[in-house]
């Protein structure tokens, strides 16, 4: 009993402390600088683009860099753990897509909501999940963010509605979340993410329609990484310009490999929707280096050269690092130190998470129904429940 309370408490604390370790990188000064994003960052559909001028502080840039570095390390650690069978089930990594999660979180507050599909480890991290709780969840331990019962695809956090397995099913769900935000007259928005493969699901269009009719603060974000598992976007979609698929909903295509462009787009989008201008469709043009999941090598439908090319020219972390160095906000050595720290933090979390125990076997029967309304027995657990037998 006590252990469950303390574990729940510590979990709550850890959710809000997710970024506490970043504080050590805050410097005394908060020098701001104006950066002009390249013209190619945005493409519009039935709207005007956000401003290309973005004001950032040194702290912020370093913080963004750090988050992306940690995320990259975390995903790499998950890759290794999966291969050594510490993680079971299906595991979908977002290596290469870090800028989307980090940029989005930088533009919004804790009270805005995010919902996404199964490539959710990065989002869970930025939404307050600690690395420890994410890795523990992946390994199916009690300390995991879903108490070990969800696994890779079902991670949840405050105002982060998962972590959803069925492709496209999260889009109408997210629209419902946006509805409550409007109903309660909060100045918050919901970011509803789906992939280029999911963009062809019927329910996505049902959600578009409902969001537009009610003018909801719903921002539909298509993470276009060009492949729906093994099918190239051009072969699955008659219209692969996903930001135009909203038809009657204005859209913006964003360079999803540039964290600052993502941030700018998301804050513009939040501003738009919370001022009663209705929903938006964003398309984040990004790329995943790994396969669709750990069971997919990722090379049977694309060439290694392509992956290498993207890694060397468009990598979000390298891009931000170049920016930081050009602005003189940091030196090569300091950044290397940052990365080393990130690696150390993740390694420590891996070691800690591996020691965590698995959930009690009684957890198989909890959370099926609301507490207090469970049926008196769930048949099949005990032989005595085949009541007819033992009269």
């Amino acid at each position, binding site marked *: 009993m006590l252990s469950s309370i303390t574990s729940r408490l510590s979990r709550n604390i850890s959710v809000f402390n997710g970024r506490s370790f970043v504080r050590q990188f805050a410097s005394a000064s908060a020098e701001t600088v104006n950066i002009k994003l390249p013209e190619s960052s945005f493409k519009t559909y039935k709207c005007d683009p956000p401003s290309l001028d973005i004001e950032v502080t040194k702290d912020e840039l370093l913080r963004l860099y750090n988050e992306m570095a940690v995320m990259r390390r975390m995903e790499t650690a998950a890759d290794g753990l999966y291969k050594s069978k510490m993680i079971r089930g299906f595991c979908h990594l977002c290596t290469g897509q870090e800028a989307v999660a980090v940029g989005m979180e930088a533009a919004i507050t804790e009270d805005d909501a995010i919902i996404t599909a199964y490539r959710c480890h990065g989002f869970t991290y930025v939404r307050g999940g600690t690395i420890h709780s994410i890795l523990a969840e992946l390994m199916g331990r009690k300390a995991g963010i879903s108490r*070990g019962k969800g696994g890779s695809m079902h991670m949840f956090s405050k105002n982060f509605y998962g972590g959803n397995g069925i492709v496209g099913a999260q889009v109408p769900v997210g629209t419902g979340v946006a509805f409550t935000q409007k109903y309660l007259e909060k100045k918050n928005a919901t970011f509803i993410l789906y992939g280029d493969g999911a963009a062809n699901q019927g329910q996505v269009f049902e959600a578009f329609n409902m969001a537009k009719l009610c003018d909801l603060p719903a921002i539909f974000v298509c993470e276009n990484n060009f492949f729906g598992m093994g*099918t190239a976007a051009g072969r699955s979609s008659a219209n692969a310009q996903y930001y135009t698929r909203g038809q009657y909903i204005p859209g913006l295509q964003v360079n999803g490999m540039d964290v600052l462009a993502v941030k700018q787009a998301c804050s513009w989008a939040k501003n738009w929707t919370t001022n009663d201008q209705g929903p938006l469709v964003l398309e984040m043009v990004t790329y995943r280096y790994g396969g669709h999941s750990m069971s997919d090598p990722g090379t049977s439908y694309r060439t290694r050269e392509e992956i290498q090319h993207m890694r060397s020219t468009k990598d979000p972390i390298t891009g931000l690092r170049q920016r930081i160095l050009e602005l003189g906000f940091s030196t090569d050595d300091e950044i290397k130190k940052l990365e080393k720290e990130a690696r150390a933090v993740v390694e420590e979390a891996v070691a800690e998470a591996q020691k965590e125990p698995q959930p009690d076997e009684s957890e*198989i029967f909890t959370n099926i129904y609301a507490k207090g309304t469970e049926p008196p027995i769930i048949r*099949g*657990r005990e*032989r005595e429940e085949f009541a*007819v037998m033992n009269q």
Partner: protein
Amino acid sequence: MQTSRFTLLYRNFANNIYSKPLSRNRFIHKAFFHATKKILQTSGAPPPAEGYLPGVAQSKFIKSTQEEALKNSELMNTGVANGETKKMNMFQAINDAMGIALTTDETAVIFGEDVAFGGVFRCTLGLAEMFGRDRVFNTPLSEQGIVGFGIGMAAVGHTAIAEIQFADYIFPAFDQLVNEAAKYRYRSGGLFNVGGLTVRSPCSAVGHGGHYHSQSPEAYFTHTPGLIVVMPRSPIQAKGLLLASIRDRNPVIFLEPKILYRAAVEEVPVGDYELPLGKAEILKSGKDVTVVGYGSQLYTLENAIKLAEKDIPGLSCELIDLRSLSPWDVDTVANSVNKTGRLVISHEAPQTSGFAAEVATSIMERCFLRLEAPIQRVCGLDTPFPLIFEKFYVPDMTKCYDAIKEVVNY
């Protein structure tokens, strides 16, 4: 007090998988864990999506020699009885069946998510190259669209072989299957039908599938009149049943236990042959207990029976593979229960309203006075299919053995 099934399981499968075995369960421990231990010790490569089930290779129901394979009475009349066979696993057998279907039927096409490069389980490997991209093609990620599209083609009279990548994703297409496909013939008074539609989908537990890669949704569809539901247990069966399903003049849902794709390897006749739908097969004759199952569960039942027959001298169990779930072969099972008086049914799907409920009730209606003990159902728990708790959830060998013992000792 006899140890509960659950506690037995927990002791065997708890945190430390190599816990000291209880003397009572020593042989269960040995049989089960030697294979698992070996696999867990190798590292480096992630487990294949189809999982491992090494025990299947030792099964007596797997026909690993040509002689065994061709001895099948159902193949006698098909023309492959004296033909050559080839060693194939289940996905290769299914691949072969589809190749034959496309060769013999001009209007047959195969479509689904990622099928052109071979599919996530390689079932369609090489078919796009052989028959062209206009006959074997990818669809976008839209299950409802896929099945609806197939229904339309079939309504015109073509043969549509749709693949739903995992049975867990069949639910967006549920309306199309239940409201359109199943009722087409009935509502048009016979003017139109979608007999040419076959929906293939990998189903069942795989060891690491979790909520959305392990479900067995057969019960949702057997409840719908107008649909045929088939689940094979092995490569020879899969090829014959799939060809029969494709050529059957009713819409068929062909569920393939994904763990058997690689695990089951047999000498499969290379010719064109069909196995009858709607007929069960008696895999093992016995006189004391009738055990009924389908798909991958049969191998678990085989092990449970072996153990029970060892523990209870003189016991002989009859194992029946239903093969077709809708319509299912009531007569074979009823005849068997009239002989034995005891029935155990097992499947992975949750117990409440699972297919075992249908079998149990039908047999109760027919064999009431003959039954010596209440009918036992050994099924999955009434919970969502868990990831970490999978071993507790599935009706494994221990639970099935226990049910057989229960019904014998009543």
